[in-house]
């Protein structure tokens, strides 16, 4: 059961990773980063059950927090600088 969950999460992570690599605009990459972060949280929770030591849920909790704060911080910084025009122009 946990194996199925882990496989699903890994497939999702790799697809999101592909979007992060391709992502034409900066926001696509931020979105992919957010998604990889959420899936990392889930993966750690699932791995805790897979290895029969589910007492490490604290880490997953901290990951969820860091992920959210990270995305907000990134968006805060996108106000400055020229990433937006540069990022959406090409690549």
């Amino acid at each position, binding site marked *: 059961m946990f194996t199925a969950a882990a496989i699903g999460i890994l497939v999702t992570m790799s697809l999101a990773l592909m*979007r992060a690599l391709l992502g034409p605009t900066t926001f696509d990459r931020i979105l992919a980063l*957010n998604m990889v972060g*959420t899936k990392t949280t889930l993966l750690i929770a*699932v791995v805790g059950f897979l290895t029969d030591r*589910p007492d490490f*849920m604290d880490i997953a909790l901290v990951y969820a927090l860091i992920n*959210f704060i990270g995305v907000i911080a990134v968006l805060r910084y996108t106000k400055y600088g020229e990433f937006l025009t540069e990022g959406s122009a090409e690549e």
Partner: protein
Amino acid sequence: MAATLDILSWILIVIGAGLSIVGAVGLLRFPDFFTRLHAAGIADTLGAWALMVGILLQAESWLVAVKLILIVVFLFFTSPTATHALARAALASRLNPWTKNATGPKP
């Protein structure tokens, strides 16, 4: 009782994993940023919750269950907030939504 819980978790985990994968495929295949945001929203909210609740039903101790519930509640608040903030920031930076007439940026 245990068998019922097992079946319930199986259903929830399959739903969660399926929605996550569907969302990720959408993230990869959709033509522009706003549609991708829509697809990622599904994977990050309902997909993640279904997976977590499916795992939650298998928890043996109360401490683990409470931590998992905290994670679910946290995702419940942060995922939509992050998605919303992203969409606002993208609009504020004049990223045009994609339309059928292809006036926006090319996919």
